[in-house]
């Protein structure tokens, strides 16, 4: 009798285990993507459910939350945040440090590493661990311009002269730590931070206070002096624009604005050197889960949403440049003006690592001082002092 009971119990256990495997997940998942991507993501979620019957009963709520916002919110309250969310790579260290990111499932990690470009994989990795799924490789900037105004986009001097002649503006957001590096990295300066596995920054490598740094700073001051210069990087909020340093996310707006004269190119040279800058990536993260089935569902969904086919579809729907190697090779992507400009620029960019939050406001401060003409008549010594202070402050954020 006892034996029978044990048998029955064991059988029940095995059955329940089996059914657990087959059931998948039928609860609720929350996904945060930027407003523009909501409809696209909803379509892809349906496709995902159709392809994976074990997840057919799952409810997926998609909310429009921008990349910048998402990271902050996930850190503030992991519990209430989305299970799967878009974010830009510069937030990775902060999120790992706050315990707001789950590692990529080992099986998926192998596939992700094999299928995506090396830069994007490195951007999603902290120490040895892959923490997120690469989504795009297009988080860099280049030049959009109106070909009826700008005749030669290869030098900044030429662009500014054309703009001035036409009474139009050239936009570049030099009071942003992101766009500013175009100058500093262009002259060969470095500014990187080393981080440990936990997401803490442990060392700062910077040489802004150098001849190269001085050269870059002077170029920016010269740029700000031009009557055609405007500070900004959002094309739909730019007035009277003939050329703008901006990214692929604004390609639709740029096409609409410039119409037949729409053109894109790598960044120009200035004072004889090529402008550089950050190359960056957008990632899809999964937050830590207390339920293993749900985690599996999140992983499956994230893997689906970042797969090659979906990345290609996303490019076609939204113009986001894929990080998937296969998708990058497709004809449509190869033929895209914005993406090929970005691709050209890629040769000169530095992959964006992790930076402390304070760096961005520090750089904004420097840019604001340039724009407000504080340095217009400054001598080299003063400028060097400014750069030394900047570099020291950058170093002080470590530890």
């Amino acid at each position: 009798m006892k034996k029978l009971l044990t048998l029955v119990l064991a059988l029940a256990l095995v059955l329940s285990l089996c059914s657990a495997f087959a059931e998948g997940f039928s609860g609720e998942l929350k996904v945060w993507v930027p407003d523009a991507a909501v409809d696209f993501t909803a379509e892809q979620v349906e496709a995902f459910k159709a392809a994976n019957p074990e997840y057919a009963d799952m409810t997926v709520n998609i909310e429009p939350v921008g990349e910048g916002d998402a990271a902050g919110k996930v850190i503030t309250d992991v519990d209430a945040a989305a299970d799967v969310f878009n974010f830009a790579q510069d937030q990775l260290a902060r999120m790992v440090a706050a315990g707001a990111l789950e590692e990529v499932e080992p099986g998926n990690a192998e596939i992700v590493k094999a299928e995506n470009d090396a830069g994007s994989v490195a951007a999603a990795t902290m120490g040895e661990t892959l923490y997120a799924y690469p989504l795009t490789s297009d988080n860099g900037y280049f030049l959009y311009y109106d070909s009826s105004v700008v005749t030669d986009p290869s030098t900044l001097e030429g662009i500014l002269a054309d703009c001035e002649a036409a009474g139009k503006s050239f936009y570049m957001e030099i009071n942003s730590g992101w766009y500013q590096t175009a100058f500093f990295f262009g002259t060969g300066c470095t500014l990187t931070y080393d981080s440990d596995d936990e997401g803490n920054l442990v060392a700062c490598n910077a040489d802004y206070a150098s001849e190269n740094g001085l050269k870059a700073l002077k170029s920016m001051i010269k740029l700000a002096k031009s009557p055609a210069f405007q500070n900004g990087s959002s094309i739909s909020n730019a007035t009277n624009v003939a050329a703008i340093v901006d990214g692929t996310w604004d390609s639709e707006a740029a096409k609409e604005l410039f119409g037949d004269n729409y053109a894109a190119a790598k960044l120009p040279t200035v004072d004889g050197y090529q402008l550089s800058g950050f190359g960056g990536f957008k990632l899809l993260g999964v937050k830590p889960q207390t339920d293993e089935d749900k985690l599996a569902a999140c992983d499956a969904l994230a893997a689906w949403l970042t797969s090659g086919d979906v990345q290609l579809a996303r490019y076609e729907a939204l113009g986001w440049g894929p990080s998937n190697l296969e998708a990058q090779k497709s004809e449509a992507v190869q033929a895209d003006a914005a993406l090929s400009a970005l691709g050209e620029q890629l040769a000169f960019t530095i992959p964006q690592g992790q930076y402390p939050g304070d760096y961005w406001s520090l750089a904004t401060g420097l840019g604001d001082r340039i724009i407000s003409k504080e340095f217009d008549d400054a001598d080299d010594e003063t400028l060097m002092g400014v750069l030394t202070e900047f570099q020291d402050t950058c170093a002080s954020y470590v530890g």
Partner: protein
Amino acid sequence: MTNNANVAAGQQKLRSKKGHERRINGTIYTVLVVMSIVWLVPFVFLVLQSFRSYKLEKGGMVDYLLPKHFSLDNYAFLFEGSNFFSWLGKALIVGLIVAAVSAVLIHACGKLLDKGEESRGRRIALIGGSLLVGFVALTALTAAMQGFVLAGSWVKVLLSLLLFVLAGWIMARVYLKQDSKLLRSIPGYVVEDRHEGLKKFVAMLAEFLVLGIIVQFILAPMTMSQYVRWYINTLTIALFTAVLQTAIVLSVSYALSRLRFKGRKLIMNAVLVLGLFPGFLTMITLYFLLKQLGLTQAGAVPGLILIYCASSGMGYYISKGFFDTIPKSLDESARIDGATRFQVFLKIIMPLAKPIVIYTILMAFMAPWGDYVFASYVAFGHQNGYNVAVGLYNWVNTNDFQNYFTRFCAGGVLVAVPITALFLALQKYYVEGVTGGAVKG
């Protein structure tokens, strides 16, 4: 001769004084005109931008003022995907029918009352009864018009019925207070005093229209665009906050102004000290408190109402200042006549405090429209829980939204117009509130 000269000199002096006066007034007018331009120009710009054609000129920022093409594109976008207008149309029809039928019913009651003897009970029974019957029929009519199935929605039907009965009861009481001659002459209320009668009739019509909209809201929820949803969220928050906050503020300020009890000074000092802490200090704590109650994200609307009202007692200062100016002898004589403190509060002080009541309602109603910080924190990325401020702020200040600037302008205009109209209509009370309460307290 000398006399004449004196007169002439006097006249000249007077004239020069007048000229001086005129010059001063001229300067003042110039200053005022310039100020008015400065004050109004941004709003004119805002309105102009909101009418810029989205199809032809995009929604971004431009460096010219006058749109080259005027259109309603931006406004159309706000309502895209919402059946708002047809919904509103139906609601107004329902309201109008309700209003018309009730007018007829009340009129009939008046006729009936004419014949019989006038007893209070009889009147209430007649009017209340006929209103009730009318309302039941009308609810059924509304339901039928919406083409919705009764099964499964009986809670909603009951709710709307309850609303009607309540409204009918209140109205029956209100009208019974009037002279019965007035009662008999509805619709129109025109016999005794044309103006007054018309005003009352219009007021009644408005009441019924609002009632119609509310019932419509319960029975047939509209499909909402994001903007309409944010708008309704904000309106809901503002209405509830206006009622609850006013009740709380008036209670506290009345207690602190008119009643003397142990701990009164302590409470006032404590509020003073607590008021010195900056409000955003506790934001994160409030968020987690609300989260424990399930009032964040999807529950953001009730959550915000709770936040706005819970601590509103601390804003007693202005209305207390007002209560302080009402003579205490009024209370005392009423107390001698045997009224309880509660009765004094309700029957004596409240009617006198009308300006400050309206001021408090106005302030409480207007504040939620402008709150971005708490509202965005509590909604925590859940778009359906946004208020207009959060939604519109995101449109104009985050990079996720391109070409939304003119849409922001349109959305802003739709918020600003009713609020401004309300404020200007009640401006008198606002002035009484700030000058009476803020200064003397």
